[in-house]
């Protein structure tokens, strides 16, 4: 009896401490990553670095083109992915009356979500850059990002479509509205929050993406306007970080880029968390 109870005590203590230790390690890891990047990068921050393009003549490096490219490509990809993703979600949730088609689409979305980014990069290069003749350009990169982020947008939109009470739809139908009108005026306005959350999650993914953009968007560091940039190659922040750190050994620039990326993912994360809580509260009402 006492042996058994000692055994139980040991079991309890071991499992309890293992859980605590593992959680502590995970938390410490997060803190380490954040603090390391920010502390190490502070000395390298300068206005000049953030506001200029790299110049071979003066031998200076600036990350402004990379920041602009990142913004352009995210904007373009969002413009492309939103109608596609929201449309698919609406089809699956509101219209679908053919189970086979629905199943095929669901399966494809699951597949898309699991394909690694390097494969997207290769296929994007083959299809958009070579077959469609877009060359290595931000537009090709944005198209690749669009396909990659479809599952995220579709899933979050579907989730929020499901939270719209069926009675809303029935009420609108009862008033004589047809389907598309019901969706446009009743259902969609109710799930704006969910769609926005999906967008934010996608922006996070797009910002962090590098392998898919390496071969589709390229490495150039030229400062362009939006439309010129779409046709020309350009490195996003992540690709630039890779190039500066791995191929040029410029750790100072790399640190600054890493800090910018870290800051952006912090902001995106906080926004997404706040939004998710707001949706949760709404559901609770």
């Amino acid at each position, binding site marked *: 009896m006492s042996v058994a109870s000692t055994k139980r005590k040991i079991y309890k203590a071991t499992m309890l401490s293992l859980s605590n230790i593992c959680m502590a390690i995970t938390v410490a890891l997060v803190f380490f990553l954040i603090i390391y990047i920010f502390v190490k990068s502070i000395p390298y921050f300068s206005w000049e670095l953030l506001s200029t393009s790299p110049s071979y003549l003066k031998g200076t490096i600036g990350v402004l083109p990379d920041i602009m490219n990142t913004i352009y490509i995210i904007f373009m990809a969002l413009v492309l992915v939103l109608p596609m993703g929201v449309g698919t979600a609406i089809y699956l949730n509101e219209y679908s009356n053919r189970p086979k088609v629905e199943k095929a689409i669901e399966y494809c979305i*699951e597949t898309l979500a699991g394909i690694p980014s390097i*494969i997207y990069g*290769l296929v994007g290069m083959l299809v958009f850059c070579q077959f469609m003749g877009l060359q290595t350009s931000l537009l090709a990169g944005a198209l690749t990002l669009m396909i990659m982020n479809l599952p995220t947008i579709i899933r979050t939109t579907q989730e929020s479509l499901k939270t719209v009470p069926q009675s809303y739809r029935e009420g609108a139908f009862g008033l004589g509205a047809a389907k598309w009108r019901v969706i446009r005026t009743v259902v969609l306005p109710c799930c704006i929050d969910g769609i926005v959350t999906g967008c934010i999650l996608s922006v996070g993914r797009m910002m962090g993406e590098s392998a898919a953009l390496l071969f589709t968007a390229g490495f150039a560091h030229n400062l362009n306007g939006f439309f010129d940039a779409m046709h020309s190659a350009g490195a996003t922040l992540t690709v630039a970080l890779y190039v500066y750190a791995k191929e040029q050994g410029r750790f100072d620039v790399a640190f600054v880029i890493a800090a910018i990326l870290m800051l952006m993912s912090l902001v995106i994360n906080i926004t997404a968390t706040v939004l998710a809580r707001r949706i949760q509260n709404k559901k609770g009402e």
Partner: protein
Amino acid sequence: MFEAHKKIINTEKIAYWIFLVLGVMNVGFVLMICVYLLIAGTPAIVKVGPIDFLFGTTWASTAAQPKFGILPFILTSIYGTIGAIVIGLPLGFFSAVYLAKMASRKVKAVIEPMVDLLAGIPSVVYGFIGMLVLVPGIRALFGLPDGSGLLAAIIVLAIMILPSIIKVSITAIEAVPEEYTLGSLALGANKVETIFRVVVPAARSGISAAVVLGVGRAIGEAMAVMMVAGNAANMPDSLFQSVRFLTTAVASEMSYSSGLQREALFSIALVLFAFIMVINGILNMLLKKGIKR
């Protein structure tokens, strides 16, 4: 009156077809990816010979007598993934148990966003930190000439798959009905025994889904691994060997490749895709099983 009615019916029809087309386009994208990979990937496998390609141990794509054996990459990817799971699974599993069952609501509200942040950090940043912290660390610790290699890649991958393992495990553990816990406590088991002997076994399929998801993440990761693995096409004989994964083999030579070498790179991508499809299949099966129960 009739005119207006007709117009509405037309708009409705158009809307239906637009949404149907948008939905079906997703199928089109998947088909496009499969077809392009098959078209681009098969020629080299045929030319080199499937056996020589998959089980050849030497990769010398730029030599005078080029050799295209990708066994080193396949083994590296498998070892790297197993290693990442061996480190990442216990860490993630116990963290998930802590968050789902032991943490107070306040603690959970603080830590969960931190786990999300871990998932949101771009892979190049992981690679960069790995390059600056892990690689010199391993070099100093084991007295090696160069710290970059399989071990560094495994550790980076383990950290990168942590958030997925934690998130999915938490969902699985929280989905276990409260009655199980109550029943076990009523029979005299203490809280820890209840968690690990009743709740966790009940959440088995969800937790295995977390593992498979982690495997998928680890095997598909390219950039972070490229920055810490050393990138020499060696067989992964030791933990400190400089190695190439399937993903990094494609990424590192793509920009200057041509001819058969380029075709072989697409074949590597095809092999990687085959791996991923199998893993996805297992994942979906597990997830469905979890939902059914």
